[in-house]
Structure formats: C-alpha cells, structure tokens
C-alpha cells in the first residue's frame, strides 16, 4: 500500500475518533444536564406539594382567607414549574401531563373545599364536616399522586444519567480500539519509510565514495520505490555525465599533448637554422647581430623547456597508475645523495626520517620528492649553509609528509599561486626554472587523492606538506 494511503487512513481514523468522542461527550453532557434539571424540578415539585399539603392542613384547621391566597400562589408556582418544564422523552411528557391534570383536579377540589367552608355557617354542621373531610382526603390523595409522579420523574432522570454514563464507557472502548489501529498503521508507515531510507542513505554513501555502478534495490510499491527508482536514474545520469566529463578532459589533455608536441618541430627549425646561420655566416655579422641570433636560440631553448613542462604535466594525467608500497625515506635519501654529488661544494644538512613508506605509484612519488627536495636544494642555494628536512607528522588526523628548508622561502600572500603551472615567485636570474615542478607535484598528489599545501616566510624558508590517500 502507498504511504500516502496509509497516512490518509491514519488521519481519517483520528478525525473520526475525535468527532465521535466530541459528539458523545456533548450528547452525554446534555443528557446529564437535562437529567439534573429534571431532578431539580422533581425536587421543586416535591417541595411545593409539601407546602400545599401543609397549607391544606392549616386551612382545614383555621379556614383563613390568607391561607387560601397562599395556596393559590403556591399552586400557581407549581403550574408555572410544570408549564416551563421542557423535556424530551415521551415518558417524561406523559408524567408532566399527568401532573398537569392532577393539578387541575387539585385546584377544583380546593375550590370546592373553600366553597364548602363558606356555606358552613348556614348549613348542616355534620354534612359540612363530612364534605370537608372527604375533600381534604381527596386533596391529600391527589397531592400524593403528584408526589408519586415527581418521584417517577426523578427516577426517569436517573435512567438518563445511567445511559449517559454507559455511552461514556462505550466511547472509551471505541477510543482504545481506534487508537490501537492508528498506532498499528503508524508502525507500518515507519517500517516502510525507515528501512528503505537507511538503504538509500547507504547507497548515497557508496555512490558518493565513487562507485557509480551501485544500484539501490528496494522492493516495495510505494513512494519509496519511486524515490529509489529516481535515485538510480540519477546515479545513471551522474555516471553518464562523469564519463562525458572524463572524456572531455581526456580530449583536452590529448589536445594539449599533441599541440605542445607539434610545437617542437618548428621550434627545432628555429633553433637549428639560427645555429646554422651563426656557424656559416656568423663571420659576416657584427657583435650585435650575433647577440640577436644567440637570443633567438636562448628563447627557443626556453620555449622548448616550457613545452617539455607541458608534456610532462599532461603525461601525469594520462599515465596509468601502478600502486604499490613505496619506500619514501629510501627514495628521498637517493635524491639527496644525487644532489650532493652534483654540487659537492654546497653545505647542506639533510635530515630524513627513517622508515617512511606509503602506497602509490613509485615513479610519480619519485617525481614528487625530486621536485620538492630539488626545490629545497635550489632555493637554499643562496645561503651559505642549509638544512633540508623530510619527515612526517599528523595533521587533522592524517599522516602528512613534509619537506622543510631554511632557504629563500616565499610570501604567504602568494601561496595559492605556487602550484599553478608557469607561475614563479622569483626571477629567472635569482633561481632558474620554468615553474612547472609544483604543478606536477599537485597533479600527482591529486591523482593519489591527497592534498598538498605550503607554508613559508621570505628568507626564513618554506615547508611543503602532502598527504596520500592509498594508506
């Protein structure tokens, strides 16, 4: 079932439950109120009837006009109570009608009684007394009837109260059942969301890690299924896009490679023919003419270096990597000795930590160390003595290798330019080079999924860090 349907069921059940509870509570409340009103009425009727009774006794004893007036007032009150009573059930109406007619009977009998006492003085004493006794008994009987009716009314309201209580109990049971259903449906929804969501999360992590062939497999027929299908489609698109990008980059690299490659041939012509010209016709030229020609040759040599730099750089990207364990300490040591043999007059102390090894392409990591240590060697050349250190330390929880020197250093303001191809911090006269070494280092480190960064201070030295991610 779809999650939306389940949620709708849940909401519907909750609304029905709320409505039912509300209805029943208000109905029961109303019934209760009515019942209480009736009880109050019954009480009032009882009270008034009692008063009527005592007035009746008083009258039969004293026959005072004042009592007759009070009786009329009480009777009116009682009538008014009955008239104003407004109750629902037919049984109650019947009782009220009864009381009504009994009241009428009461009124006429009492009038008879009053009329009887008025003729007392002129008539036969015995007949009068008999008549009065009979009327008083009749009146008592009638009030008794009203009392009984009032009790019936009170009983009836008790019945209604009971019904209200009963319906309250039923509604509690109903609520329990509906709540159970709602909770079950909620659990069902939770299951159908939480499990697939964690699967999706896992899939996103795998795909984010670079495995674009990963498919999220969720068997369901709801929105989660649609989501996982869309997710898989997105992964497919991502894969497609990535391969397009990769091939575009490859094309660019190929272009850079063949362009720089093709530049070599005309350049060879420029250099070769300048040399030939210098050799064969140099005698006919003055000093300036020969200087110009040697500048042409120097410029073409420079261009040749740049082209070689570009070729080397693009080779880094094009080359297949061969990952194996690489002895970085040994490699650095070999580079250091080679530099020492090359320029034995320099006073450079090498401090190389022992036992450093990492996984990577040995040829590429060799180039990294050659460039970094070579740079350290080059940029300390203007100092009388130098110290070059190659070691490792933990930076942000990762092993970072570093090459530190105490040479010319650099201004941190230009730190971001260091790794860009053909960007230089010093003039050619100060330190020779075309500015490709650190760009090569950066590409190699990126191909090893690591980071490279530098810190430095002018004339205090520089420190280059790199991390490797094939650990």
């Amino acid at each position: 079932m779809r999650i939306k349907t389940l949620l709708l069921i849940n909401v519907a059940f909750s609304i029905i439950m709320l409505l039912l509870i509300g209805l029943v509570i208000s109905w029961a409340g109303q019934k209760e109120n009515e019942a209480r009103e009736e009880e109050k009425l019954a009480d009032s009727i009882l009270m008034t009837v009692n008063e009527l009774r005592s007035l009746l006794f008083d009258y039969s004893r004293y026959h005072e006009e004042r009592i007759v007036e009070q009786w009329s007032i009480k009777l009116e009150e009682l009538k008014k109570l009955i008239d104003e009573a407004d109750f629902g059930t037919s049984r109650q109406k019947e009782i009220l009608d009864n009381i009504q007619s009994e009241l009428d009977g009461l009124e006429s009998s009492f009038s008879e009684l009053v009329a009887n006492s008025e003729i007392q003085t002129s008539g036969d004493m015995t007949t009068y007394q008999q008549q009065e006794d009979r009327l008083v008994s009749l009146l008592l009987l009638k009030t008794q009837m009203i009392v009984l009716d009032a009790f019936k009314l009170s009983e009836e309201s008790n019945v209604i109260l009971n019904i209200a209580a009963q319906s309250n109990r039923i509604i509690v049971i109903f609520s329990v059942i509906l709540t159970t259903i709602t909770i079950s449906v909620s659990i069902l929804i939770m299951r159908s969301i939480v499990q697939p969501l964690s699967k999706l999360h896992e899939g996103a992590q795998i795909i984010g890690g670079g495995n674009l062939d990963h498919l999220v497999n969720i068997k369901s027929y709801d929105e989660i299924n649609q989501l996982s299908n869309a997710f898989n489609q997105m992964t497919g698109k991502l894969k497609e896009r990535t391969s397009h990008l990769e091939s575009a980059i490859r094309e660019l690299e190929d272009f850079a490679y063949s362009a720089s490659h093709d530049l070599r041939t005309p350049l060879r012509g420029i250099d070769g023919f300048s040399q030939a010209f210098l050799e064969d016709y140099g005698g006919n030229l003055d000093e300036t003419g020969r200087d110009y020609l040697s500048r042409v040759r120097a410029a073409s040599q420079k261009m040749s270096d740049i082209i070689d730099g570009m070729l080397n750089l693009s080779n880094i990207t094009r080359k297949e990597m061969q990952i194996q364990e690489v002895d970085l300490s040994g490699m650095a040591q070999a580079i250091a000795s080679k530099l020492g043999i090359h320029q034995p007059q320099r006073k450079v102390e090498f401090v190389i930590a022992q036992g450093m090894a990492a996984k990577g392409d040995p040829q590429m990591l060799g180039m990294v160390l050659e460039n970094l240590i070579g740079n350290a060697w080059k940029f300390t050349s203007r100092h009388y003595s130098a110290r070059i250190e190659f070691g490792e330390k933990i930076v942000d929880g990762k092993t970072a290798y570093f090459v530190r020197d105490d040479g010319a250093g650099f201004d941190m303001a230009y730190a971001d330019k260091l790794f860009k191809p053909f960007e230089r911090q010093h003039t050619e006269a100060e330190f020779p080079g075309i500015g490709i070494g650190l760009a090569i280092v950066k590409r190699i480190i990126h191909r090893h999924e690591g980071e490279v960064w530098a810190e430095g201070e002018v004339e205090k030295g520089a420190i280059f860090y790199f991390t490797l991610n094939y650990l």
Partner: protein
Amino acid sequence: MEKESDLNKKILLVEDNLDDVALTLRALKKNKILNEVIVANDGVEALEYLFGTGKYEGRDLKDIPSVILLDLKLPRIDGLEVLKRIRADERIKMVPVVILTSSKEEHDLVAGYTLGCNSYIRKPIDFDQFLEAVKQLGMYWLLINEPPPLKIR
C-alpha cells in the same frame, strides 16, 4: 671517421618535414658522415624505394640501405606501417631501423619496439643536442654495428 666508413653504405631518411630533412643532412655533414642519403618524404615514397616501385621502378634491390632513419608521423602511410612492411618482407626484414621522431608517447614507443625497431630516438629541439644525437647514431649504425648479411635473391 670517414676513412673507415664504407661510403657505399646508404642511409634512407624517411621524413616529411623539409626543415628536419635539411637539419638532419646538415648534422650528418657536420659530423663528417658523408654516406649517400636517400630522402623519402612520406611512407609511400619510402616503400617505393625499398621495393623498387613507382618512382624507383627498376632500382637495384640488392642495394639495401645500411640504416633507415624513420619518422613516425608521416602523410599517407605512417612510420609504424612502413616498419611493419619492412619487417614483413624476407628481403629487407633485417635492415636496422632507427625511429627518429619528436614523439615520446608511450604507445608509440611500445608499438615501435613491438614491430621490431632497433632504436628509438626522440629528436631534441636544441640543435647542439640534435647534432650530438645524429653523430652518435651515425657512428653506431654505420661504424660500430656489424650489419646483417645482405640477402640476395
């Protein structure tokens, strides 16, 4: 050096770039390698020379060059294809072939050696280095190296 080198030994230079041809010839001359150089400007011409067809119809095929300097990027038929056909022919399959190119792409190197080139030289841009390279290869292939016996039909 020229006293010792057999001037009958010919060099076949397969090169489409006329500047490079001129520079190579100059480098040979500078290094006093005075052997006759036959220049083919593309793969087709090289094959015509080697098999005595087309422009070289009726050439004496027993006259096999002592070394072939072969560029790879050539119009029509490229250097690797020329090398393949040389190695496939019984008569000339033993001729030393030196690939002289500006490419140092790995797949070119691998293809060159797989097809049986004897040497692979990347043309330096610096003319002095180029001179040195031509001197070395001339000395090696024309003087030091003992050529294969000529196969005569």
